[in-house]
Structures are given as structure tokens and as C-alpha cells.
């Protein structure tokens, strides 16, 4: 049923199925298998490999490439190639994001992480994202909130993680299911790498996508495969929300993205074009 709130202009007719709502509410994540077609996946992989073979100072501005000891980070890829803009607006992923944040998603940061094989670190830690200001236990962080009411979900910070390389079992993204609703402070004795850890990992095929609340306790397990882990992280927040991350859209490079992408990255009250189009299609 469509719900109208004239003072805020929100249409929150949910784009999620009842099963998706139940699952996300229970676990704090959803896994979309084959979210990206093989053709699109190949294009994204080729672009990333091209950039990784490039020198940082030859990257298309404002895209940045930083090589790290065990990998690399590429920031703002949608400003360097429209394939990443299309990925940020990809309907199967956008539908879920819309359903989690009242049809008002705003892309506020995008990056690609590359992880190389490295020895296991038994002390690898997990965390909850706090967007720069960590709230004391017992308080709900408004920067990273989760609520459910009246058959709807409000999750104002959501991370869409798209695998561009296969992820074998027991490595890569790890999280503690259900911890987005934890009301008791996590003890320091809970470790990601312990044999009895409550953290789980996700064997993925390239093209799969995990959509998760960063209010989940989560982390990254050391990469043990011969091939690199390559993941796009697109982080979205509720678009009515104040702009606590002033990075996007990058005004000085507005000409590198489409008007629709500029709108998707902007704080705004109105229903965005990509959202409107998808709502109409649904």
C-alpha cells in the first residue's frame, strides 16, 4: 500500500518483497546473486585492471589510485568511467536500496578495494561504521540508524558491495548477522578470526552483490586466494539527511557525470530521476 506524507513528500511504497524485508531485518544484509550481468562485469573488470596497470598520476582526475602494502584503493570511479555511474544506478541494486531508505538514496562515496594474498592476522578486528562520530553504547547513532515500523524499514546508511572477482569461502567480507539490532555492547573478547567467532563470510561469484547495514559488526578477513579480491563499495545514505560527508557530488568535476548521477549524489528532498523511473517501471 502506498503511503503519502505531504509534509516530507515521501512515497514509501516499499520496493522490497516481504521475504526481503524479513531477511534484511533479521540479518542486516541481503545477497543478490548475479546482480551484474557477465557483459557488464567484464567491462568493469577491464576498466579496473587498466587503472591498476596505470600510474597514479595518470588516473583520470578526480579518480585516485593508491597502492597499499597488500592491495590498492581506487576512489570516485564513476567520475572516471560511466560504467561505474551505471553501476551506482543499477536497477536490481537500486531497488533494494530504495526499499531500505524510503526511496531516497544518495550515493555519498564510491570506491574500489583491491586485496592481495596475505598471511592471516588472528587479531584482525571488526567494527561498526560511525561516520566520524562514535556514539556511546546504548544510544542509536543517527548517522547509522536502523528502524522498522508499519511494515517498512528505515536504514539510513547502506553499503552495496559488488564483487568483481570470485570470493572463496572464509575470506573477504565478514559480519555478525543480526548485530545491526544489538542492544548490548559487544565484548572485546569477540574476535573475527576465532574458530567459534559469530562472524560469517560469503562465498561469492564475481557479479554478486552484498547489501548491508554498516551498523552490522563487520570486517574483512585476510585474503588467501592467488587472485586479487576486487570489490566496489558504493555507500548510500538517506537523501534527506544532512550532508555529513561533503565529498559528493564533486562540483569541480560535475561535467564528468550525468545530471542523473549528479542528482543521485546530491542531498535533496525531491524524488530523484533514477528513483522515479524505477518506481514507475515497478
Amino acid at each position, binding site marked *: 500500500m502506498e503511503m503519502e506524507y505531504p509534509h516530507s513528500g515521501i512515497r514509501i511504497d516499499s520496493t522490497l518483497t516481504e521475504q526481503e524485508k524479513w531477511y534484511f531485518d533479521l540479518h542486516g544484509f541481503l545477497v543478490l546473486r548475479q546482480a551484474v550481468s557477465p557483459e557488464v562485469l567484464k567491462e568493469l573488470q577491464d576498466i579496473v585492471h587498466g587503472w591498476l596497470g596505470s600510474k597514479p598520476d595518470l588516473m583520470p582526475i578526480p579518480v585516485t589510485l593508491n597502492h597499499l602494502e597488500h592491495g590498492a584503493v581506487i576512489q570516485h570511479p564513476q567520475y572516471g568511467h560511466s560504467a561505474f555511474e551505471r553501476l551506482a544506478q543499477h536497477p536490481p541494486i537500486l531497488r533494494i536500496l530504495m526499499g531500505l531508505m524510503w526511496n531516497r538514496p544518495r550515493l555519498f562515496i564510491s570506491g574500489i578495494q583491491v586485496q592481495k594474498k596475505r598471511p592471516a592476522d588472528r587479531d584482525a578486528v571488526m567494527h561498526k561504521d560511525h561516520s566520524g562520530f562514535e556514539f556511546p553504547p*546504548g544510544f542509536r547513532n543517527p548517522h547509522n540508524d536502523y528502524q522498522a*515500523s508499519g*511494515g517498512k524499514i528505515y536504514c539510513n546508511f547502506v553499503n552495496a558491495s559488488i564483487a568483481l572477482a570470485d570470493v572463496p569461502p572464509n575470506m573477504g567480507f565478514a559480519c555478525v*548477522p*543480526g548485530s545491526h539490532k544489538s542492544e*548490548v555492547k559487544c565484548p572485546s*573478547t569477540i574476535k573475527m578470526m576465532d574458530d567459534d567467532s*559469530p562472524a560469517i563470510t560469503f562465498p561469492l561469484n564475481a557479479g554478486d552483490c552484498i547489501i548491508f547495514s554498516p551498523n552490522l559488526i563487520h570486517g574483512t578477513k585476510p585474503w588467501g586466494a592467488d587472485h586479487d579480491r576486487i570489490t566496489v563499495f558504493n555507500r548510500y545514505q538517506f537523501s534527506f539527511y544532512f550532508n555529513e560527508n561533503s565529498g559528493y557530488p564533486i562540483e569541480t568535476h560535475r561535467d564528468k557525470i550525468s545530471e542523473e548521477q549528479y542528482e543521485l549524489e546530491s542531498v535533496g528532498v525531491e524524488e530523484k530521476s533514477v528513483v522515479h523511473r524505477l518506481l514507475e517501471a515497478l
Partner: protein
Amino acid sequence: MLTQEERWYFDLKGYMVVRQAVPDEDVRAMRKQMEIWFEADRNGVAFHPPVRTNHTPNKPWWIYNVHYDNEVFQRLTINREILRVTRGLTMNKPRLYDVVANRLTKETDEIELHGGFTGGFREPHVGYQVANEEIFCSFINVAISLVDVPAGAGFVCIPGSHKSNFQYPEDITVNHGPPTVANIAAAAGDVIFFAPITRHGARRWTEDDPRMTVFMRFIHAAQFHAQDDGHWPPFEKQKTRLSQAVYQLEQRDHGQRQALYDLMAQQDEQKGAG
């Protein structure tokens, strides 16, 4: 009474396990007694009320109120670890209102998932709240395994479903895998505590020897019983078969449960000394 790890885990999952909470000799004695009762029931022997049995084909064989007829089962109701956890989940006021044991075999049907949030208002008798890092769970199930339960069989639940905000899908069964359905392997003497609002069930038994489990249900002792209809303990006519502390554990709390309070204080001292 609960450690930080236990509180965090129970809040996260809606269940927790205490390993080796019951002494081996008590487990063996209860198992032996269960077989005696089972044979007696098969031979048509009548039980002394309030002990009674129930069995329908392909379902578990159940025997109720066993602690009125056997001191080892009665000792189980005031087991220190069981009381410690139930006290920690009920603001120190547990009331025992059901004790029942079952015996099942490979021929017994699985126990389908049941419990869980169905939408709308929340049932106050199965309440779950957290405040100031403390949990209040007004209804707790306790399952004490009398046999080793291998992975793949036995208790399952949907972790976190005690806090679900949406109706569970009907198509998820006891045989789904993690993370949605968790199967908990247990050794004899292990105890599983779970909120009944955590959707739960049991997979079909896989072993040649029968599975035997004692279930105890606790509610907050200051609240009304959802089904206070005379079929639940304490059974006044048979109260002399219980210790004063167990009899009081079965009562609503009006501040009169001194023998139980003394027992709890004694257990706390032993725990501190231990």
C-alpha cells in the same frame, strides 16, 4: 549473573548454550529413569499424578512433571547454572511453570519451526526487552540434553528472530542452513536457553539410540501466567513431594519465596567461592 558475553550473545541470537551444566552422574540417572518410565508406560502402568504421559504415533513420547516423582529431576530444576541464567534473564525472578521430558527415535517426525513474530502487537507473556545493558525476557525455554546430539540433528532455531519486525516466511524449514537456521550440536549435560519468540524446532533424529531431552519453562515470577488454569505447577495436593525451594520456584512471587532466596544466595556464594 550473566557475563557480558552471555548478554551480548543472547541479545544477538535469542538463545545461548551453557556447556556441561549438569553433572554426568545426574544425566545418567535421568536417562536410566526415562527408560524405566517409558517401559512402564508401554506396559500400561499408571503414573502418580501429577506425572502423566502422552504419545501419538510418529511424535515424541512425553512425560510431564517428572520432578514430582524423582529427586534427580527435582535437583535439575534448581541446578545452579540453570537458575543463574534464568535469573539473569528475568530480573532475578524466575518462576518454573513447566517441566516435561521427551524421548524420540529416528522414526519420530521432525518438530516443525514454531514460535516467532507474526506481526502486529507483541504478546506480553513472551516479552523481550533490553535496557541499560540488561535483558528482560519474560518467558524462557530451557532444554537439557540427556544424550549427545550430533550436528545435523536436534534443536534448530532462527537466530535473531526474537527481535524480528516482520512475519516469518512459511517456507523456511528446520532443514534450512545457516545463517538463517542454526543447528546446535550438544553433549549430554549441555543446556540450551532460548526465548520462545525465537522461532525454533527440531530436525529428525539420526542416531540409533533414542534422543532424550528435559524441557523446563520459566516465566517472570511477578507476572500472571498466560494459561493459569490449574494444569500447571505448583500442584498443591502433591507439594509435599517437593523441597520448599522448588515449591516456591513454581509460585508467583509475592515476596514470600524465602527458601528460594536462601538457596539462590547460597548458590551465589558457592559461585563466588568457585
